[in-house]
């Protein structure tokens, strides 16, 4: 116990003799003494000199001790200034009144020096305790303000990174996130691929606060970097998983759903690792197909055992994909009950206006009596016509003066490579060195992608595109694709690129050959150019976007040109 430090003590006592006696006792105990002859003087003395403790006579002229105590307590505010009543009163009501008006203790006259010293000591302990509590409270409040401010700044920085994509610009995305969802580990990213497809990721890191937010940065960087270069879901997911596995502690990981929405092919490719079911809402039938988690979250498995297999679903114009974080279904109501998937599906069933879905879910969460959570994220992406979507123009940093204009190159990709490697981003990067082609990068990438997947899927893997005629066949087609690719032992896809200058610009010839069986070129060419079907869209797309598209060698070799005019 710490020794008693000298205190400044105010004595309010109308009897001069008592005042003198008390003052000399206290001085002898080492304290500084202030004196007042009535309540009003006591209040003035307190206001001017802020003593630590007050000894107050109850009965005094001008202002009695009760009123003076009330005023001093009011002036002291949150600081504890103990008031000990000095009283010759003995009836219990009067003694109780001393405490009711704010007194902390009382001492009966005549004074006992030992008891007086002990009471002052005890009151001083209380006074210090209150002081410490107040200091700590203020410190916590300061830290809290500091933390909130840090979060505001961090969020502003993060918003620049995370919303570098098309989240706010694209007309087909609606989303809703609690303002500080990031600090609960929720992450929402969206960007266009060079071919005009859209990649979307909704992620949820384990844990809360800063640790959860930190992992989001590298994830966003991989997402935007690889999407812009034309990598598909599989490669991007593999890279994100490897990166998170490397940098995160063992008990941290990121649940995520990633989508590739293709406006050209009218399909959505989905990978779900550990997120609640997403839903594909078909407007025509009203049906909602769940998109359940098929995988472990990102950052759990080693790169060797990571499973990047996706599922592909056909979509019609206006169909929507809805994703949500577990903050929605884990919202807690009375009795620790969770909102749950069933209640969510009831909201789905009652929904009449697709655009009002978010509001209806929010309302349902409020009605459920759930506490508002700070980790509620929802996003809905709809399939529009390709013309309604305008991917932002790519920005190039070089001047274009040193671009190569007369060259050719040939690649042969063999079975082991076809299994895991996607050559398209490399080919596209190479071609975009040619300045004149940059304006057509979207069409170029789409055509390259179609030629490559035709050669791989229909050629090397021998898949029949008519499987894709209906929705169930569509899913089967992609399952079969994955299975055959996994077992692939031989076969090749060859890509020849030739760039040659012309009088007023240049010409790129792309030729893609495969080791497959080929197809009946004439029959396919007879089909009208713009038929809207789930199958065979690739070929009509190539014919519309490229020039002089031709198939030879029974369809095993495809050739298409892109031309450009010299830049002014």
């Amino acid at each position, binding site marked *: 116990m710490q020794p008693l430090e000298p205190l400044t003590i105010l004595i309010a006592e109308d009897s001069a003799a008592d005042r003198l006696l008390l003052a000399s006792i206290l001085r002898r105990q080492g304290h500084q003494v202030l004196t007042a002859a009535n309540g009003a003087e006591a209040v003035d003395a307190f206001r001017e000199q802020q003593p630590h403790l007050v000894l107050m006579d109850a009965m005094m002229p001008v202002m009695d001790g009760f009123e003076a105590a009330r005023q001093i307590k009011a002036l002291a505010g949150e600081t504890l200034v103990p008031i000990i009543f000095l009283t010759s009163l003995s009836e219990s009501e009067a003694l109780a009144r001393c405490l009711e008006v704010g007194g902390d203790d009382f001492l009966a006259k005549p004074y006992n020096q030992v008891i007086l010293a002990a009471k002052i000591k005890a009151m001083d302990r209380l006074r210090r305790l209150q002081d410490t509590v107040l200091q700590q409270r203020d410190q916590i409040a300061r830290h809290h303000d500091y933390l909130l401010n840090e979060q505001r700044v961090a969020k502003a920085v993060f918003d620049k990174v995370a919303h570098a994509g098309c989240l706010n610009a694209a007309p087909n995305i609606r989303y809703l996130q609690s303002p500080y969802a990031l600090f609960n580990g929720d992450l929402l990213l969206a960007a266009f691929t060079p071919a005009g497809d859209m990649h979307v990721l909704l992620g949820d890191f384990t844990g809360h606060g800063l640790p959860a937010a930190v992992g989001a940065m590298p994830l966003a960087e991989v997402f935007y970097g690889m999407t812009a270069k034309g990598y598909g879901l599989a490669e991007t997911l593999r890279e994100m998983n490897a990166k998170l596995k490397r940098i995160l502690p*063992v008990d941290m990981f990121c*649940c995520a759903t990633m989508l590739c929405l293709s406006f050209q092919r009218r399909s959505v490719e989905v990978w779900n690792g550990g997120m609640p079911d997403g839903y594909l809402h078909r407007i025509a039938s009203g049906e909602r197909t769940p998109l359940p988690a*098929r995988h*472990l979250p990102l950052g759990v498995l080693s790169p060797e055992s990571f499973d990047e297999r996706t599922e592909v679903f056909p979509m019609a114009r206006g169909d929507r994909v809805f994703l949500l974080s577990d903050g929605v279904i884990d919202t807690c109501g009375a009795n620790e009950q969770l909102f749950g998937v069933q209640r969510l599906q009831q909201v789905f069933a009652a929904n009449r206006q697709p655009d009002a879905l978010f509001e209806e879910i929010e309302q349902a969460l409020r009605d459920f009596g759930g506490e508002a959570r700070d980790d509620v994220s929802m996003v809905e992406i709809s399939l529009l016509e390709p013309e309604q979507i305008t991917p932002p123009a790519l920005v190039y940093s070089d001047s274009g003066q040193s671009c190569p204009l007369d060259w050719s190159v040939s690649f042969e990709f063999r079975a082991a490579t076809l299994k895991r490697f996607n050559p398209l981003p490399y080919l596209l990067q190479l071609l975009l060195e040619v300045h004149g082609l940059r304006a057509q990068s979207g069409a170029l990438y789409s055509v390259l992608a179609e030629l490559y997947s035709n050669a791989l899927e229909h050629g090397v893997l021998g898949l029949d595109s008519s499987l894709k005629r209906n929705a169930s066949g569509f899913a089967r087609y992609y399952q079969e694709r994955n299975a055959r690719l996994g077992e692939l032992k031989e076969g090749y896809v060859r890509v020849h690129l030739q760039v040659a200058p012309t009088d007023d610009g240049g010409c790129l010839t792309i030729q893609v050959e495969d080791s497959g069986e080929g197809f009946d070129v004439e029959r396919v060419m007879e089909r009208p150019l713009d038929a809207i079907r789930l199958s065979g869209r690739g070929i009509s797309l190539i014919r519309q976007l490229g020039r002089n598209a031709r198939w030879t060698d029974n369809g095993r070799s495809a050739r298409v040109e892109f031309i450009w005019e010299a830049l002014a």
Partner: protein
Amino acid sequence: MPVVTEVSPDGQKLTISVKGRFDFAKHQEFRQSYEDKKLSAVVVDLKDATYLDSSALGMLLLLRDHAGGDDSDVRVVNSNTDVRKILAISNFDKLFDIS
């Protein structure tokens, strides 16, 4: 005690039972239940666990790592429907033997 451990008589098997909410509050206790032990087989008994959050999933990953990672033998038993649903969404059955 919300986290109870028991070592089999032959010293080969460690059983960790978690009671109540299996969440971040149990972090310390859960880790202490295994970290000073050499593990060959581990059973996590969730018979009395009412709820499991994502930090509990992280704790299970830490345990698995401690027990040898891909070579570990960790079984999660007696999980109730809610708990099993959470384990299923996270696809943890790919890492743990869950029953």
